[in-house]
């Protein structure tokens, strides 16, 4: 039921939405989240963001996260797509779609999926600043707290 992909290419939310809904008439609500590259980090302008991942484990972790969401909510479809490689401000990073019969489950599942993706899937971000210096993004305590809400 879940579509799970790690890719360098961009994604199209319209195309993924169409794939998930094709031929379905049992879905009543579809929630999504897209994360995009912001043009600054902690007040410093950035020119690029490079995403590294752990091939194999990443897909396994995303599959486990999707399965956990399906265990918690009555989901009719899940799409998780995460980009890797070098991205620029305004670029898409991650797409989460969750489809359900009713809206609250779709919204809750989407929040859960992005919170767990951020803390339990092996991706790492490096920011490149205007002066050419680079810095690995540090994990945020509030991301851990957001993920722990679902414990």
């Amino acid at each position, binding site marked *: 039921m879940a579509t799970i992909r790690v890719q360098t290419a961009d994604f199209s939310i319209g195309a993924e939405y169409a794939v998930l809904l094709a031929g379905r008439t049992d879905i009543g609500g579809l929630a999504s989240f897209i994360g995009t590259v912001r043009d600054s980090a902690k007040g410093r302008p950035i020119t690029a963001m490079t995403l590294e991942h752990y091939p194999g484990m990443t897909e396994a972790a995303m599959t486990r996260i999707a399965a956990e969401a399906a265990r918690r909510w009555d989901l009719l479809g899940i799409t998780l797509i995460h980009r890797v490689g070098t991205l620029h401000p305004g670029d898409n990073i991650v797409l989460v779609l969750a489809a359900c019969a009713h809206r609250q489950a779709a919204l809750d599942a989407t929040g859960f999926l992005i919170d767990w993706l*951020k803390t339990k899937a092996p991706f790492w971000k490096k920011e490149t600043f205007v002066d050419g210096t680079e810095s690995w*993004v540090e994990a945020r305590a509030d991301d851990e707290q957001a993920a722990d809400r679902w414990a």
Partner: protein
Amino acid sequence: MSAARSVKLLYFAWLRERVGVAEEDLALPATVATVADLLVWLPQRSPGHAAAFATTATVRCAVNQDFATPDTALSAGDEIAFFPPVTGG
């Protein structure tokens, strides 16, 4: 019983940059039974390893692509990865 246990080590993000390689194949010494043992032994291998594992509070480990804890036991053929806390999404 003293047969060498060959394992594959993987490093990601700033651990990879500090160690200087993305992966290496090693034979674990008899003294290394767990992830915690490996975290004691690895820094002795090179200045790069020492730098990477200087602050193990921010080092995470996966064994065979599943998150591991310090007391996770290691076996021949394991794929052991070290990386910082994840920051995707």
